[in-house]
């Protein structure tokens, strides 16, 4: 059976697409699936660095497209699990070096060998976005609880539909439970009400995720960190398991103190 290709996209930049791709990919691979990660942000590649694989790149996606190497030669094996490979993109080429039809063909080839192909989309809705969605079977939208990010997510839902990708699912990233509690951040219900697509996961903003990115070790490896736990849960939901969403309320200093003095 051929694998499933998921595109991870957002419209707005800086909401955590690449981090989500790295974590979901590694998470799925650690649970025994064969996974290929594809960085489609030609000219601004990041996924290699987030995965900690930047020193191993020889060939890239553009080399494969241009026929400078075979697909298998450009796939970088992950250092933590043999189930995971990364197809990096070119850093020094123009972003239109790849065409959507070529991307579609490439993803199709990968689907023959891998269970999951995760395509990390660039920000924006132009050429790179069209490449990223070209071969995808399903889409995951990443947003943060901010007006601009949710607005862009809404636009992306429409554009995905126009490309035949219906029913994308949503990851809300960088949720600050303390701010939600104070009424200073939109909560998940607000965002789901507005976007009207199914929720795949909620990832709290914590320091662990920054530390892990500094080291090139996706946070999903760290089960003691709330964001790592959240990504682990998303992985299980992708496998079809029903996992309750994290209760993020009990995180604040007020809550900790209250529990300490027995007020709740």
């Amino acid at each position, binding site marked *: 059976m051929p694998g499933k290709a998921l595109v991870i996209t957002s419209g707005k930049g800086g909401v955590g697409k690449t981090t989500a791709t790295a974590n979901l990919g590694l998470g799925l691979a650690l649970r025994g699936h064969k996974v290929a990660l594809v960085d489609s942000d030609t000219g601004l590649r990041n996924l290699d660095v987030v995965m900690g694989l930047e020193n191993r790149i020889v060939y890239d996606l553009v080399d494969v497209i241009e026929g400078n190497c075979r697909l298998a030669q450009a796939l970088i094996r992950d250092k933590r699990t043999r189930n995971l490979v990364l197809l990096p993109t070119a850093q020094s080429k123009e972003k239109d070096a790849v065409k959507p039809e070529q991307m579609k063909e490439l993803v199709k080839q990968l689907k023959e060998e891998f269970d999951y192909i995760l395509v990390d989309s660039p920000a924006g809705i132009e050429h790179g976005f069209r490449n990223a969605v070209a071969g995808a079977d399903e889409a995951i939208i990443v947003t943060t609880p901010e007006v601009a990010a*949710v607005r862009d997510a809404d636009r992306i839902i429409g554009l995905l539909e126009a490309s035949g990708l219906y029913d994308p699912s949503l990851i809300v990233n960088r949720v600050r439970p303390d701010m939600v509690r104070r009424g*200073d951040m939109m909560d998940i219900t607000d965002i789901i009400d507005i976007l009207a697509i199914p929720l795949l996961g909620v990832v709290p903003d914590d320091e662990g995720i920054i530390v892990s990115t500094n080291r090139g070790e996706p946070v999903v490896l760290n089960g003691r960190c709330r964001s790592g736990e959240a990504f682990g849960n998303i992985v299980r939901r992708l496998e079809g398991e029903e996992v309750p969403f994290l209760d993020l309320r009990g995180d604040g200093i007020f809550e900790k103190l209250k529990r300490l003095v027995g007020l709740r």
Partner: protein
Amino acid sequence: MWEFLSRLFGRENEGSKAAAKERLRLVLVHDRTSVSPYLLETLKEELLDVISKYMEIDQAGFEVNLEQGDDSMALVANIPIKEMKRALSKTKN
């Protein structure tokens, strides 16, 4: 006491979430409706078909537009009628 304290500290910031939601709602009303001129053109043609069953319309003056108020959107149609169809007024009586 905690309730009191957190309320005391929270009060100054009250409403920033509500403000975000409201601004988002408005911007999306606009985004979603202004998506496609094609949609508006299709709507116009279908409206024309339906209304033409009952009355004769001056097609040159027929206009359908979205108008934005401060906190609402409206579909505004201007449909000049040339003539009512007699058959209709009979059946309706």
